Every structure is written in C-alpha cells, then in structure tokens.
C-alpha cells in the first residue's frame, strides 16, 4: 500500500470504520512506514484531546422551558421564523440595491444638469454688449484707437 492511500485511510482506521482487509493492510503499512506511523500517533492524540473538552449539560429547568414554549405557542402557527427571516433579509438586500441604483441614477443626472448649466454660463451669448458711455465702453474705444495706429 502506498503512503498516499494509507494516509487517507488512517482517519477511518482510528474510528474503526475499515473492513478487516483494509485494517490489516494499514497495520502492515504503518509497521514499516515512519511517516504514516507518526501521522497515526498525531491523529490518536487529537482524538484523545476531545476527552478534555467540556461536556455541558442542559441548564436546570430546560425541559420545563421547552414545554412552556410549546404551550404558549398559538396552535396552528408554524415555526417558519428562519424562512421568514431569510425572506426579510433577501427583501432588505434587494431594497438596498434598488435604493442604491436609484440614488446613483439621480445623482448622475443632477451632475450632468449642473455641468451643462456651468458650461452654458461661460458661453459668449451670456455677455451683454457694452454701453458706449460706460467705463467699459471708453476702455474698448481707447483700445480700438490704439490698434488703428
């Protein structure tokens, strides 16, 4: 048996889930293979470490609370809360996406509108002609006179 095959079978081996034939093959392989023998020891160590985990017991009065919960529940009301919660979650996500998209579209159109107003404000069409008797008119007349020379 190759190491790659043996390593896959070590876990079911320690769980006693192999056939007698497979068990025999693993045992003979491990005897002659230091790497698989080490891995087997590590797996056994991990398995035994579960014995150190706390095994909590149901709190005092648990069964009574369960029975009270059953008695308090209106008859015929199905326990569909998880399904309902998931539907609410899905609806909330859809609403957020929709609001986000709408807000993006509105902001985009407002920006385009603002930009076109700004561009049009710089157009020459928006300037009025200068009155001849104003300071501006005198300045233009003076400049035109300078150019004519």
């Amino acid at each position, binding site marked *: 048996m190759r190491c790659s095959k043996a390593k896959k079978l070590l876990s079911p081996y320690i769980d006693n889930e192999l056939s007698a034939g497979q068990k025999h093959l693993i045992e003979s392989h491990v005897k002659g293979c230091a790497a698989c023998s080490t891995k087997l020891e590590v797996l056994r160590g991990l398995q035994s470490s579960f014995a150190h985990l706390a*095994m909590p017991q149901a709190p005092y009065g648990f069964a009574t609370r369960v029975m009270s919960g059953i008695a308090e529940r209106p008859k015929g009301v199905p*326990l569909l809360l998880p399904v309902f*919660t998931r539907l609410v979650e899905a609806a909330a996500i859809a609403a957020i996406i929709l609001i986000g998209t709408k807000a993006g579209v509105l902001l985009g159109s407002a920006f385009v509108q603002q930009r076109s107003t700004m561009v049009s404000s710089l157009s020459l069409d928006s300037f009025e002609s200068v009155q001849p008797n104003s300071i501006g008119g005198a300045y233009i007349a003076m400049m035109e006179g300078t150019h004519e020379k």
Partner: protein
Amino acid sequence: MTKNINAPALLERFKKGDASAFQEIVVAYQDSIYGLCFHMLGDYHSAQDAAQDTFLKAYQGLKAFRPEASVYTWLYRIAVNTCIDYKRKSSLESLFRHRFDDERLIEQEPSDEPSPERASESGQLAFNLKKALDRLPRKLRAAIVLKEIEGLSYGEIADTLGISLGTVKSRISRARDELKELMQNPQK
C-alpha cells in the same frame, strides 16, 4: 449515542395526544442536543436558544416522523440545521461572547480532581481545541462533533447530515487535518 428510552412507545403515546410523552423525549435528549449545539455554536447562550428551537421544531414535526428512523438521528439533524441557521445569523454577535465562554470552558473541568499541572495542561488543551473547533468550517465541524463528541458512527453521521458515507469519511479526515494545523499554528 443510544438513549435508554422506548422511543416507539413514546411516539405512540404522543400521537394519541399525551404531551407528557414529548417531555420524556426532551428529558432523555436535552443534554446531547444542548452539548451538540454548544460545540456547534461555541457559546452557552446561543446553544440554549438553538436547543430549545430544536425541540420546538421536533414537536411540530413529530406527528410526521417515520417510526423506522432513529429519534436521535432525527433530532441531531434538526439541531445541526438549526445551528447552521443560527451561525449564519449571529456570527458577528458570537465574536463578542467567545472570550467569556472560553473562560467558562476552562472552569468546567471534570471533577476527578487531577493534579494542578495536569489540570492546567488539559485546560490549555481544551482551550486550544475549542478555539480550533470554532474556526473550522461549519460542515467539517458538524461531522467531527458528531463523531468525536456524540460518538456517532459514519453511517449515523451520514443519516444525520443527509450525505454519503464517502463524504462523511472525507469531511472527518479533513476536519482532523485542519484541527491539527489550527492547534499547531493558532495564529494562522
């Protein structure tokens, strides 16, 4: 983990309207279901809620339960699915509880009074293992908890989780490899 109750007789009584029969089922399995929920969710508070929900769901579905199936496999299946739903919903909330529960876990050492060194060693081992278990993906955690803590066979795990024997074998093997890695490199 076979419980010493006459499940078919209790089911028969329940179907005839005897609610106390269901209470006997709750009493028989409450520690197993609560323990399973604790190891799946990692904290006592969520475990209690999930275990209670498991029995409420079982009560509702008990009349449709097939007598040829095993009661505890059926209860474990409800509990695992309930815990997966809880984990999905409260993953953020549980982050704030883990520290407190880890401290309580060390306090709950077996009462056979080991030496202080031994108690400290096993406490640290339990702490590291629980930390690693909490970081394991849900599917791998369910498989290894059912195997190592509940003591189910591969066939019973396959029935409980509704998966093939090959998948059970692969998930348990991967769970062990990942646990070993997480315990050796806790910072990973």
